[in-house]
């Protein structure tokens, strides 16, 4: 049992993260202050929500590069709409509308993927381009800074605040609750519902999933609709935290999010991945890139470090499974070479 736990990518990322925290904390005690951790949580929220969407797509054997376009589309159009309506109310309506727009765009992805069985990468490449082009051309391309009051206030919606010894007040932003809620929801869906198991089954073997009687089309519709909703919410949080709606923002981050998710143990080939691992992967990237300055490394090194993390982080499990395979090859070769052979009637 312990062996199985230790061989998991999640455990490895968790240990690395812990070691990294201890190291940074030893170099600069500021790391362990509430202010720093509130910052980390804030940075991790949007990426975390995106990553959970990416996780679900990856488990099902797909890949989605359009979620950033959905996020910025939903956020910006919602802001434009409510600003034109002169809406004075709270943030909830922003979230609701943005999530609904995200749902609609996600369903467009689902339509092409499930109806025409097109490769997910191709569809989402196309829709990313379409969504962003439509947003910038039809809805608008300038940065909106005079956002409605409800959205402006959201940037100060702290769960609680603490005042440190220097008298600076820092707060934990409530957006982190979204991440927690979405993570719990995704965990429950993936682990305890037949829908969630159908996502794993689809990623394991599409043909087998159809043969045992899963409705694969429905599963795919759910996946891309769900990712759309998550993107809508995350986009709105992003706009709220930055106190502006920038139509040219967010798109371009998709590959970073996919990298963090894979770092957390999700397989790019499908079938494998967990919510815990994904959160750890996101935290690893966030802690690393936010803490360089704390460690006295110039901020310009940020990308070098993240690139190195991605390469090393993906190389370690590969090299490890290679070693395991070399051991296992003795048992398997004979059988493996036989399995798909035999009469194909």
């Amino acid at each position, binding site marked *: 049992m312990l062996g199985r736990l230790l061989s998991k990518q999640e455990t490895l990322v968790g240990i690395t993260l812990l070691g990294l925290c201890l190291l940074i904390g030893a170099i600069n005690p500021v790391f362990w202050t509430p202010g720093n951790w509130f910052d980390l949580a804030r940075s991790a929220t949007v990426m975390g929500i995106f990553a959970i969407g990416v996780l679900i797509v990856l488990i099902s054997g797909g890949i989605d590069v359009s979620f950033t376009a959905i996020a910025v589309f939903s956020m910006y159009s919602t802001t434009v709409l409510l600003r034109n309506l002169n809406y004075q109310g709270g943030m909830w309506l922003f979230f609701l509308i943005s999530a609904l727009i995200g749902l609609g765009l996600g369903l467009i992805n689902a339509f092409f993927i499930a109806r025409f069985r097109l490769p997910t990468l191709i569809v989402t*490449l*196309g829709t990313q381009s379409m969504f962003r082009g439509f947003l910038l*051309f039809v809805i608008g391309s300038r940065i909106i800074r005079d956002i409605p009051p409800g959205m402006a206030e959201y940037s100060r919606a702290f769960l609680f605040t603490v005042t440190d010894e220097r008298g600076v007040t820092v707060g934990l932003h409530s957006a982190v609750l979204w991440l927690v809620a979405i993570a719990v929801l995704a965990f429950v869906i993936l682990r305890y519902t037949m829908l969630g198991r159908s996502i794993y089954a689809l990623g394991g073997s599409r043909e087998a999933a159809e043969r045992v009687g899963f409705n694969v089309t429905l599963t795919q519709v759910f996946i891309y609709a769900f990712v759309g909703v998550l993107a809508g919410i995350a986009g709105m949080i992003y706009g709220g935290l930055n106190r502006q709606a920038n139509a040219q923002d967010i798109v371009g981050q998709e590959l970073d999010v996919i990298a963090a998710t894979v770092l957390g143990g999700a397989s790019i080939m499908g079938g494998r991945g967990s919510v815990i691992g994904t959160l750890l992967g996101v935290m690893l990237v966030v802690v690393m890139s936010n803490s360089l300055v704390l460690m006295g490394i110039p901020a*310009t090194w940020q990308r070098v470090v993240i690139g190195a993390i991605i390469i090393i982080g*993906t190389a370690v499990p590969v*090299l490890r499974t290679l070693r395991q395979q070399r051991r296992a090859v003795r048992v398997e070769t004979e059988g493996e070479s036989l399995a798909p052979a035999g009469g194909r009637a």
Partner: protein
Amino acid sequence: MTVQDVLTRPTQWTRLLIRDGNLVRLFIACVLIFVTMSLLRPAVFPTIENFRSMGSQFPEIGILAIAIMIAMLTGGIDLSVVSIANLSGVLAALFIRAVIPADAPPVVVALGLLGAIVIALASGVLFGLINGLLVARVGLTPILATLGTMTLYTGINVVITRGNAVFAENRLVFIGNTYLFDLIPIPLLIFAIVAAAVSVILNKTGFGLKLYLIGSNEKAARFSGIDVPKTLIGAYVLSGLLAAIVAIIFLGRNNSAKWDFAPSYVLQAILVAVLAGVNPAGGSGRIAGIVLAILALQFISTGLNMLLLAVSGGQFFREFAWGALLLIIMVINYYSERRRGRT
């Protein structure tokens, strides 16, 4: 009909077009877009002036698409091409600044520029080699390996330049401004040479055929005695080299190189390759497809620009149209495959 007859018949090209449905549809799309735009804007679209302008716009994306196609043929992908182009460009620009004084005699300038180009190409080869080693020797999934090196190369670029643009002292702008016979822009010429050369490599050399075979079935390739790691490394090196050629065009056009130039080109180049009919799973794809795809996209972009000139943000409509064209072609492919399956 004997085997000999089939192989020696002169109508290879027409047969190819008939067999490769995607290529035919692309060709039709290309012609349709061209004719439509010409009819809608007869005064400006079908003109020499416009051809000159269009011809100078797409070569970078076109070459990047060819670079990505080479990786895709083997069943991989190269996300790092733009970061290689930017970093090679920065290195070349730094070299120009360092060795060519403002009042240098022409010989020094010529030698210096030659050196800069060699440095760009050599660094492109080196970065491609790193990608190849990660994929072929370490065994990383190409999408992850090149995602990592993309970030790494960009990061190195930021560290070297502290995030600033590096200017090339107007030494290479002739590449962006000169027209051969007053008609063909130099970047277009470079694109044509690259396309022709890669086409020869893919169709007439053992290395090219090996790329297709590996993409079709890597295990069978290994069992046929093909040195798979060596060939894969070759593919990524070639891809890096093409990215470095793009670096020189970038310098010729912008007179500067910067770490965050044109990040959206990565996905756009993939879009071109996929539209061209390159199978992301490997094993099939043609240069002819890339040429047709990039032409179709360029006609759409320019045409829409002319139609929407009065509207603000017309340049963004291009993005929408590209995505739409990709999906439309894929859906048409779906229906024609299905029809063929039935009859």
